[in-house]
C-alpha cells in the first residue's frame, strides 16, 4: 500500500488526561501518520500508556479518568458528545503488555472480534481466522490444532495470537502497549519483524520502554517526560508532558531537547 505523505490517521490536539481531577498528562500534540509506526518512549510515570489508551477510549474503563482536548480521527473528535467508544474500538484496536488471550480455543480467540461484528457464517469465519493467524506469522505453528486453548501457547505465540485477534477485524490503527516487554529476546524479535510487516497495511502506535526497540521499528518517536511542582503543603505533584516529537532517526541522532538526549543516553529512566 502506498502512503500518502503527511496524511494522519489520528491527530492528538492539546490532549490532557486527568485522574480524579489530578492532571496526569498535559497538552500533548502528536500527529499519527498513516502506515507508519509511531513510538511513545519515556521514563515510567510519564503518561505514555495513558495517552495511548486515550486513543481508543480505553481510559473510559478507569473510574475517574477524564480526557480534555481533541483526538481527531477522520476529522471527528473521539471525545465528542455523541461518540460511542464501542464503535471507536472497532476501528482502533489494541494489543496489551501482557499477552491476554481468552481462555478459549485459538480459533475462538481470533473469531471473537468478527463475531462481535455479527459475522456468523462458518466459512467466512474460517477464512478470517486463517488470514489473521497467517498475518501474525503464527499459522505454521498452530494450523493443526486451532481447537487448542490459546493459553496453551508460549508467551510469544500468545502475543502473536493477540495480534491475530486484533487484525481479524482489520482496524485502521493498532495500539500496542509495550507488546514485547513480557517476552524473551527471540519472541521480541518475532514481534518486531511482524510489526514491520503489519505497518504495510496498518497504522501502528507502540509504547515501549526499550529505546533500541523504538529505534529499530518506529518511523516517528514521541518522547514523554515528567514535570514536577511543589504544592502548598510540601507535596510534590507530577505529570507527564510531550518532551519532543520527531522522525525516529532524527530524534535519536540529533535530539533537540537536552532532556531527550539525556534519556536516550540512558542517564535516567
Amino acid at each position: 500500500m502506498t502512503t500518502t505523505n503527511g496524511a494522519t490517521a489520528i491527530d492528538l490536539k492539546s490532549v490532557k488526561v486527568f485522574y480524579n481531577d489530578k492532571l496526569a498528562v498535559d497538552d500533548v500534540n502528536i500527529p499519527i501518520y498513516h502506515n507508519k509506526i509511531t513510538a511513545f518512549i519515556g521514563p515510567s510515570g510519564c503518561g505514555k500508556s495513558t495517552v495511548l489508551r486515550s486513543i481508543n477510549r480505553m481510559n473510559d474503563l478507569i473510574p475517574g479518568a477524564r480526557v480534555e482536548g481533541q483526538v481527531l480521527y477522520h476529522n471527528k473528535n473521539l471525545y465528542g458528545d455523541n461518540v460511542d467508544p464501542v464503535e471507536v474500538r472497532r476501528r482502533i484496536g489494541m494489543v496489551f503488555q501482557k499477552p491476554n488471550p481468552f481462555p478459549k480455543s485459538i480459533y475462538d480467540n481470533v473469531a471473537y472480534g468478527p463475531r462481535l461484528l455479527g459475522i456468523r457464517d462458518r466459512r467466512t469465519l474460517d477464512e478470517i481466522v486463517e488470514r489473521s493467524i497467517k498475518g501474525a506469522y503464527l499459522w505454521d505453528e498452530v494450523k493443526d490444532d486451532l481447537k487448542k486453548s490459546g493459553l496453551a501457547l508460549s508467551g510469544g505465540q500468545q502475543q502473536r495470537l493477540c495480534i491475530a485477534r486484533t487484525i481479524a477485524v482489520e482496524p485502521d490503527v493498532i495500539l500496542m502497549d509495550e507488546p514485547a516487554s513480557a517476552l524473551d529476546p527471540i519472541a521480541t524479535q518475532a514481534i518486531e519483524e511482524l510489526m514491520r510487516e503489519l505497518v504495510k497495511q496498518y497504522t501502528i502506535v507502540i509504547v515501549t520502554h526499550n529505546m533500541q526497540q523504538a529505534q529499530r521499528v518506529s518511523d516517528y518517536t514521541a518522547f514523554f517526560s515528567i514535570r514536577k511542582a511543589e504544592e502548598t503543603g510540601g507535596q510534590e505533584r507530577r505529570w507527564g508532558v510531550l518532551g519532543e516529537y520527531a522522525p525516529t532517526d532524527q530524534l535519536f541522532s540529533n535530539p533537540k531537547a537536552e532532556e531527550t538526549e539525556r534519556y536516550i543516553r540512558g542517564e535516567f529512566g
Partner: protein
Amino acid sequence: MQSELQIGRKSEVIAKALVNDADGSPRIEKRARLFDDFIRYVLLFCGIVSIFTTLGIVVVLGRESLLLFSTLDAQGQPVVTLGEFFFSTSWQPAGLKFGILPLLESTLMTSFVAMLVALPLGLGAAIYLSEYASPRVRGSLKPILEILAGIPTVVYGYFAVTFMTPLLQGVFGRDTVQFYNTASAGLVMGIMILPTIASMSEDALSAVPRNLREASYGLSATKFETISKVILPAALSGIVAAAIVGISRAVGETMIVALAAGAGPNWTMPPNFFVAAETITGHIARISGGDLSYNSVDYDSLFALGFALFIFTLGLNLLSRYITNRFREAYQ
C-alpha cells in the same frame, strides 16, 4: 556506639545471634527442630480427625441402614428390599412400608423451587455487584449479603409460615393452597440460599482477571457482550460450585421444611406444590424427635434415609466436579 559497617565483618548484634563452633568456624550442621516437628504432627492430627470423623459417620450410616434391609417380618421375608426402598411410593413405617419416593419427591420439589428463586436472583445480584455496582455500593452490599447468609434457618421457617404461606393463599386461594405446602417452604429456602449463591458467584466473577476484560473491550465488545462471552465462561467453575453448594443446602435444609412443608409423607403425581408433604430431612427431624425405640425398624429406616441423602449430595458434588472440569475456561 559503633555503627559503621566494615566490609567482610558482621556487626555485633548479628555476630552474637549466629552460632559458631569452638574453633570459630560457622556452625551449619543439621540440628533438631522439635517445635517444627511438633507443629507438623499437631496439624497432621487435625487433618486425621476430620477425615476419620467423616469416615466414621459414613460407616455408621451405612451399617445402620444395612440393618433395615436385613430385618425380617413375621413370615421370614425381608421387611423392605433395595428395590422397594427406592421405587415404591409409600412410606408408612407403621405399616412396614419403606418407599423413599414420597420423601425424595418433596425434597426435590422444595429444592427445585428454592433453586428457581436463588439461582437467577443470586447470579443476577452477583453480576450486578461485580460488574455494574460502584466500589462504594459493592463495599456496603457485600457485607449485608454475608450477614443475610448467617440468619438462623428457624427464622426463615417462621417467615415461611407467617408470611409466605398467607401470601400464596392470598394469590392462589385458600382452596388451592394448603396451610403447609412445599411451594412456601421452597420459596423461603430460595431466599435463604440466595445470599450464599450471590456471594460465592460474585467472588468467582471478581476473580476473572482485568486483562481479559480489557481484551474484550479492546475488541469492541459492549459491557454485556464482555460479561456473557468472557467473564461468565471464565467464572463458570465458581458459579457451578456456588449452585451446587446451594442445592446441597436446599436438599439438606431441615428447619424450614419441618416448619412449613408439612408433616407426613405425601406422594403426588403429577407433583402438587400446594399440598403438605414431608421431605427426607423433615421426616428424620420429626421422627427422631419422638419416642422412638432403639433398634426398631423405624429407627433403622432413619439411617437408611440419612445414607440416601448423603449419597445424593455426594453425587451432586461429583457432578459439579465433572461439570466444572468439562466446561470451564481456565484462565491460569
